[in-house]
């Protein structure tokens, strides 16, 4: 049941992170291979700092992991997290099915009162 809450919060972070086309592209590229932030920055018409910020958002959502290599910051997608993102609808389904179960219990209580 606690899972229900944490899942809702996690799904929000993931959706926010993936609502941006650049960030989705970063996830795609880093699923194929590890990239440095400066290497990624070359793909987009924006500053290094802007790309770094996108990477931070993805990192906060758990979609990529970061590590230092000398002066470079290396980024790679967390495949498990991406897979988990696809499960979000499944989680939403579970959340509502639980609620409908509880509605059934509330209605059953009505019947108990009437009899």
């Amino acid at each position, binding site marked *: 049941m606690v899972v229900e809450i944490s899942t809702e919060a996690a799904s929000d972070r993931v959706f*926010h992170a993936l609502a941006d086309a650049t960030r989705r592209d970063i996830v*795609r590229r880093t699923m194929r291979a590890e990239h440095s932030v400066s290497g990624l920055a070359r793909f987009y018409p924006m500053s290094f700092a802007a790309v770094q910020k996108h990477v931070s958002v993805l990192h906060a959502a758990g979609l990529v992991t970061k590590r230092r290599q000398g002066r470079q910051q290396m980024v790679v997608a967390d495949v498990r997290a991406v897979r988990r993102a*696809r499960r979000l609808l499944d989680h939403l389904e579970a959340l509502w099915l*639980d609620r409908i179960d509880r509605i059934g219990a509330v*209605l059953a209580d009505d019947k108990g009162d009437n009899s």
Partner: protein
Amino acid sequence: MTTPTVHKDTEKGTMTVISLFDAPVERIWRLWSDPRQLERWWGPPTYPATFVDHDLTPGGIVNYYMTGPEGDRSGGQWRIRTVEAPHKLEFEDAFTDDDGNVNPDLPVTVITVTLEAGTGAETRMSIHSAFPSPEAMEEVLDMGMEEGILGSISQIDDLLAEDA
């Protein structure tokens, strides 16, 4: 109550759950229109919901929070779009911070509840949830196909389901 049917559209980022209840439409509507009724089912027993504001009129606001076993709270707010008692309710469901203000960084889900009388005293309740960025969901799905990771990670899928 029969088993609900679920339709998930991963391309549009929507989900519809349809359930049948052995109670009249007015009774089912009260599950939404009476905050004390809502509190009995909105949150799980370990995270019960408390509704502090409940203005079910177009443009009205519903504020609630859920309290966890450690006293931790997470808040939510509905912004009511449509109310057609006892048949239709549409609202934006957002997350709020500790002060009850809507968190603009988190997406808003639009929920549409439709109640229809069935045969006899039955009510058919349809809950339609729409994610704010269907493109995002679609692309996430595409990513999986494109990279062919579906098969390679299917074995650890069950393990992931536990920690997800």
